[in-house]
């Protein structure tokens, strides 16, 4: 997926973030989201290793190699930041204090089940913090390509891959659409140009409800 598409997804995800929220970003496309937050919006970004209040990436040469996000990339801190151990970091997550987590995904089911940590026999697995984040954040946003590299839908009736957590996903943002997980099923809210609602439905393995007004994002 190209940089433009990735950034469009990240920009769309950034719109879900409101001032004052506590947010945890996963690795991959989710890590781009912080670039799309208005500079004057106060958001506290949290990392599983033990930081609350991460700021932008430091200038080259200004990095403190010890001060990194959970993916190991150097960060800075904002006023009001604090450091703590990983047990406290997950205490924040497990007790439901995260407003939003934005994660990558391999499959999402009609019920909002998420699979994103293992492809048995193919990828080296890593649970990492995904289970706590998916299960406990107030809002879970999944950023992923709409179809896999074989062109098959990643939004499916039931996940085939081992689950990260059941019924946890609130919003799915792909390179083609924005879909909300509701009690009545999946709701197509927005499509990304040049795709149409029809394209999206054809490439989704689950019937989609149509929002009253399906917006098209450019």
């Amino acid at each position, binding site marked *: 997926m190209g940089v433009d598409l990735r950034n469009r997804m990240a920009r769309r995800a950034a719109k879900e973030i409101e*001032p004052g929220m506590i947010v945890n970003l996963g690795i991959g496309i989710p890590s781009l989201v912080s670039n799309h937050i208005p500079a004057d919006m106060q958001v506290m970004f949290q990392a599983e290793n033990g930081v*609350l209040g991460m700021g932008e990436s430091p200038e080259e040469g200004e990095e403190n190699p010890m001060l990194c996000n959970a993916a190991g990339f150097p960060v800075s801190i*904002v*006023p009001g930041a*604090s450091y703590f151990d990983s047990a406290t970091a997950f*205490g924040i997550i*497990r007790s439901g204090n995260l407003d939003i987590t934005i994660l990558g995904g391999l499959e999402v089911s009609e019920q909002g089940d998420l699979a994103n940590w293992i492809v048995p026999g193919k990828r080296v697995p890593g649970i990492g913090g995904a289970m706590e984040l998916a299960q406990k954040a107030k809002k879970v946003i999944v950023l992923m390509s709409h179809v896999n590299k074989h062109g098959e839908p990643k939004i499916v009736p039931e996940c085939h891959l081992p689950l990260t957590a059941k019924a946890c996903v609130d919003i799915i943002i792909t390179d083609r659409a924005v879909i909300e997980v509701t009690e009545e099923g999946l709701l197509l809210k927005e499509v990304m140009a040049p795709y149409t609602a029809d394209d999206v439905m054809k490439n989704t393995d689950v019937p989609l409800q149509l929002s009253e007004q399906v917006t098209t994002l450019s």
Partner: protein
Amino acid sequence: MQKGTQKSVNKLGTRDEALFHIHDSSTLMFGGFGGIGNPPTLIEAILEKGIKDLTLIGNDAAFPDIGIGRIVSRGLATKLIASHIGSNPVAGQLMTDGKLEVEFSPQGTLAERIRAGGVGLKGILVDVGLGSMVEEGKQKVMVDGKTCLLETPLRAEVSIVYAKKADTFGNLVYDTSARNTSPLVAMAGDYTIAEVEEIVPAGELDPECVVTPGIFVDLIIQSKGVNWTWAWE
């Protein structure tokens, strides 16, 4: 600071805002150990408002005229979950008279139960208290062939703590041994109020030395200081 962020990012508030969250029959958890670290201004406010039928959770009942003991000895609590009430004979009398229900936990178990509530654990297993009255009524679980007691997490509708300094985001540092149970209690409240000696702008506390990350704090009020005489004085 921009519009809309005020509430979440600047948590400085008033005594009345604090009282808005504490009602008759509330479950209230308090930081402190033997009165030290009990928040004096919040306790005074609760007494003035005459809030009653409280369920209190904390280390101990302090002394009759010190700290949380002032609430207990005036009969404003109907239940207390604590590790001891030995320093508050009024609490003992209320218990004997059937006016105060007291649930005892070993002190370290109580601290871990509060922490478990704060960090979202569903329970802890300990071998402390096996073969004592403490095991009565508790579920036993075998771990690696050894019997353990299942101790359940504790949370409260409101937690109140006393700290030396807070920044506007709610990051807290404490004062020597007045830290005691407060960082645990601060995590375990659905709504956590910190009464502090000194309030500073975000960015003024050393992030390496923050004890309670501000995410656990919902409201900060200025302390008027201790308004009782310590037992040793």
